[in-house]
């Protein structure tokens, strides 16, 4: 049923949404416009858009000359994409097992896996560092990927198993009658049907990983393994901060997440509203 549109309510709703969008985008906007301005202009008129007089790409040139910025970029991308891949793969597999098969301790395993949602992984930093040292993984991207995979799995398992429970049993059984293996049922029937949920999980997993400073700083601070968030920190000094460079680095860092987000967002919207409209 569709309510007759009431202009008053619809305008109010849009006004609220637009206001929220503006507030949310404001910091991003300020970062991006200031990254194109000279240092003086940043402090003189932080909200002004760049004019021919204030236009200055010194931030970007500093970033590109100083340190292996492209390398940091690649590190971030590698870590994010690999972690995302493992979170989605293992999360979906665990969710499938929990939702599809009856076995002793099913509930307990499910609860145990969900526990990670409530306990921040950073509490275990010291133990993780000791483990990584023992395994010789300090200053490798593998260390970060392992930690982020562990960090992302609880929420992924929780959300995906909820969605997978809603996939029709008859459909899976029809697949079994037709001779599909359990793997084929998982990959070819169930995964396509929970794609919106996968996209939701992907976005929720990806952004904290991309933005994380904590684990790169502790587990992989070497020049070769720096992520972009960590790499940008060289411009923030104890006494002097190179704002041009910081802003330029941040602006550049937005681009890849934005692209990944756009890829997932169409699915994401379907995921959030799934079930609302049958």
């Amino acid at each position: 049923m569709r309510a007759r549109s009431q202009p008053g309510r619809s305008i109010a709703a849009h006004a609220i949404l637009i206001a929220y969008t503006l507030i949310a985008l404001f910091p991003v906007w300020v970062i991006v416009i200031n990254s194109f301005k000279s240092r003086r202009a940043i402090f003189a008129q932080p909200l002004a858009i760049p004019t021919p007089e204030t236009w200055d790409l010194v931030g970007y040139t500093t970033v590109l000359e100083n340190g292996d910025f492209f390398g940091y970029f690649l590190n971030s991308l590698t870590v994010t994409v690999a972690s995302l891949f493992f979170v989605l793969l293992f999360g979906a597999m665990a969710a499938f097992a929990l939702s599809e098969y009856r076995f002793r301790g099913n509930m307990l395993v499910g609860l145990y896996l969900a526990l990670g949602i409530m306990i921040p992984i950073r509490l275990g930093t010291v133990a993780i560092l000791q483990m990584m040292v023992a395994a010789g993984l300090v200053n490798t991207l593998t260390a970060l990927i392992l930690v982020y995979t562990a960090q992302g799995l609880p929420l992924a398992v929780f959300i995906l198993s909820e969605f997978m429970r809603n996939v029709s049993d008859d459909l899976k059984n029809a697949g079994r009658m037709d001779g599909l293996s359990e793997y084929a049922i998982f990959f070819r029937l169930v995964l396509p049907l929970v794609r919106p949920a996968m996209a939701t999980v992907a976005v929720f997993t990806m952004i904290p990983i991309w933005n994380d400073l904590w684990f790169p700083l502790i587990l992989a601070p070497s020049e070769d393994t720096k992520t972009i968030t960590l790499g940008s920190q060289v411009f923030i000094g104890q006494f002097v901060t190179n704002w041009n460079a910081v802003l330029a680095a941040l602006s550049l860092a937005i681009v890849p997440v934005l692209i990944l987000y756009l890829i997932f967002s169409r699915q994401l919207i379907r995921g959030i509203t799934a079930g609302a409209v049958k």
Partner: protein
Amino acid sequence: MGSLELRNVTKVFGKTEIIKGIDLSVKDGEFVVFVGPSGCGKSTLLRMIAGLEDVTSGAVVLDGQDVTAVAPAKRGIAMVFQSYALYPHLTVRDNMGLALRQAGAPRSEIAQAVGRASAMLALDPYLERRPAELSGGQRQRVAIGRAIVRTPSLFLFDEPLSNLDAALRVATRIEIARLHRELGATMIYVTHDQVEAMTLADRIVVLRAGQVEQVGRPMELYNDPANTFVAGFIGSPRMNFLKGAALGESADTVGVRPEHLAISRQGNAIPGTVSHVEKLGGETLVYVRSEVHGLLTVRLFGEQDFSVDEAVQLTPEPPRSLRFDAAGRRLR
């Protein structure tokens, strides 16, 4: 080739026994219908035959071979589900062909089998569509087509028509009867619908709480039920159960079908008052409340005029009355 034998099969979920030891044998080419109240285990039993649910104890025997531990796809069984369960991302053609492709059949053979099934079910115009682009009736025909393509020796149907509207249900029911004649395959069919059960079945299996109450041809169950449960379950409207003592009978309960209860305005049989009248055109159902026996149903041919609160007399036709003991067992 499609005989089935269940040997004392049971199913336990957690601690509850859902199927309590069922023995049944189905001959090749037979059409057997499972009926029973909701939750009695019909679907569970069907899934056990298909191999989708493992058997807690007992054996499933197909064509003399014990298949209890055989995977569903290797049993030569096809199943049609209530919710159609078509693969949403595949076209009708691929939906129907998938099983053969999984079994590694050559392309030409798959195309031929799909063509034959689609001709049989008039699905040719829809072969390139996806399930979302079909009506409910068409989807159910595709689901049946998908079963036919594999030329199984045993078909299982789990309430295949319950999502269709009345007219489509009749048409598809006739279609299934025709398929059974043409293919000569064994079919096991679960339904809630009296008419489907009576018209399609060679034999009906009445289940209650995981046990077989009675097995027999439709008219056998209708005219000669073994107990009050079967007598009440088969036939619509339901059989009337009168108190034997009040009729001067030795039996505890006397069962009389609504059409075997005569109604008149005078006499001194069973007095009662009309509480409701349903006129269906071809027949009239009169609900009569009796002091002693409770609410009774009378089925009359044609259009009859009775008004609510009218005092009437009911007379059972003695030869058509069935007598039951206190435990509900039939006295013969």
